[in-house]
């Protein structure tokens, strides 16, 4: 690539480049600190713009707007969960979240659930840090990102399963995506579309049920033919909006954010710049679907 201009950098940051051109730009970035700075400025600017208006989503919706749609004002809360200032989707206390789909689904989910229950009950202090969650703490602690330990741990669980050629890798395979969306959408009380990352060179492997803070959470898995492995975790949270941040846990980079009652983590064994670019695309897909 002869020259990377500002518009190209912007398209790269926005996830609008095809995979081949994005790789060329990444090559150009690697040797050019000025370009890297500009990429960071573009990302910062976009995230600042997003953050500057995020609070509007959390404001009560004036009744006159609901009335303008001809519906009873009272219906809005049930429809949006955001119209009375109570913008956090209520956490379901139901215990009926275990999958009822197939023996494989049961086995895989039960194996993960057992792992969490064993550690989460606080009887042990596991190396993954599951014991830090579970009993009413976890995401409720605003000053802590310990749930990211879980995200990294689940990443390694899958990574190890993959290395061992474990056949019970996922509850839902990539061929089950519509059902996966429906099933996890119901568990997470939201519309859900599994982000398609094919244009980023990542193929959907499937989804698993995991447990974050005693609540069901979705883990979607992707891999590339270059050995990259990526997971997206969506969990309930009662914490307020938080723009994207990046945290490193061991060999895993995690881009994470919170929005409208959900905590998101996008984790992978790739460099932070590429991960962040893909995470932006994931955010857009999720935003569009919600």
């Amino acid at each position, binding site marked *: 690539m002869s020259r990377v201009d500002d518009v190209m950098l912007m398209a790269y940051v926005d996830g609008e480049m095809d995979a081949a051109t994005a790789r060329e730009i990444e090559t150009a970035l690697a040797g050019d600190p000025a370009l890297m700075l500009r990429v960071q400025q573009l990302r910062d600017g976009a995230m600042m*713009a997003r953050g500057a208006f995020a609070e*509007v989503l959390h404001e009560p919706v004036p009744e006159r707007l609901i009335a303008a*749609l001809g519906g009873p004002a009272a219906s809005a809360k049930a429809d949006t969960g955001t119209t009375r200032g109570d913008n956090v989707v209520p956490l379901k206390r139901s215990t009926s979240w275990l999958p009822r789909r197939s023996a494989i689904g049961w086995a895989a989910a039960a194996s993960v659930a057992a792992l969490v229950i064993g550690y989460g009950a606080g009887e042990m202090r596991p190396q993954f840090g599951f014991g830090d969650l579970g009993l009413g703490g976890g995401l409720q602690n605003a000053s802590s990102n310990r749930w990211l330990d879980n995200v990294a741990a689940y990443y390694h669980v899958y990574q190890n399963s993959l290395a061992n050629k474990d056949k019970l890798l996922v509850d839902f395979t990539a061929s089950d995506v519509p059902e996966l969306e429906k099933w996890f959408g119901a568990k997470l009380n939201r519309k859900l579309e599994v982000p398609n990352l094919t244009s980023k060179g990542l193929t959907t492997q499937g989804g698993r049920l995991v447990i974050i803070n005693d609540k069901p959470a979705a883990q979607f898995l992707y891999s590339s033919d270059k050995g990259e492995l990526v997971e997206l975790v969506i969990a309930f949270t009662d914490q307020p909006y938080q723009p994207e941040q990046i945290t490193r846990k061991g060999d895993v980079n995690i881009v994470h954010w919170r929005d409208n009652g959900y905590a998101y983590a996008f984790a992978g064994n790739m460099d932070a710049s590429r991960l962040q670019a893909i995470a932006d695309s994931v955010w857009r897909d999720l935003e569009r679907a919600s």
Partner: protein
Amino acid sequence: MSQPLDERVRAEMVALLPRLRRFARGLAGAADQADDLVQAACERAIARIDQWTPGTRLDSWMFRIVQTIWLDERRAAKVRTGEGRIDAAEAAEPELSVNGIRQMEAHLTYDAVRRVIAKLPEEQRLVIMLVCVEGQTYKEAADSLGIPIGTVMSRLARARTSLTKALGETGSGNIIRFDERKSGDA
């Protein structure tokens, strides 16, 4: 209204209200004006529901209504105040601070961002709201605005350059880089 509004469509519209309000806030600035805009869009959507094709995206259709009403209003305002004149609301907009030393709290920084966006030309304001805030793809924004993708990109690039420049001038450009944040401060 030429056809009764399906309750599911109405529920979907109600669910869209927070996003419509966010979009309108970015265009109109003040909360009251933004809500006036959303209200007008809701009323128009209900009146013209037969123009929406079931199976297509309701959110895109309603966003288009918001932007159309806003652009019409802006054009009318220009006619009222005289072409090329700065309208009163813009003239009253306080200037951004150029104190590059002051450390701004997050809400002040966001306030600066909102001010910068409010000062952008209308066409740039629309694309930055659609793409950066609403998460639309370039193609979706182009379809929504009825302009080529290349035009979306050039407008967006100009808007973001203005944003970067203004944030740098206000000291907000020194926002903490993600990799410099402590992981425990979420």
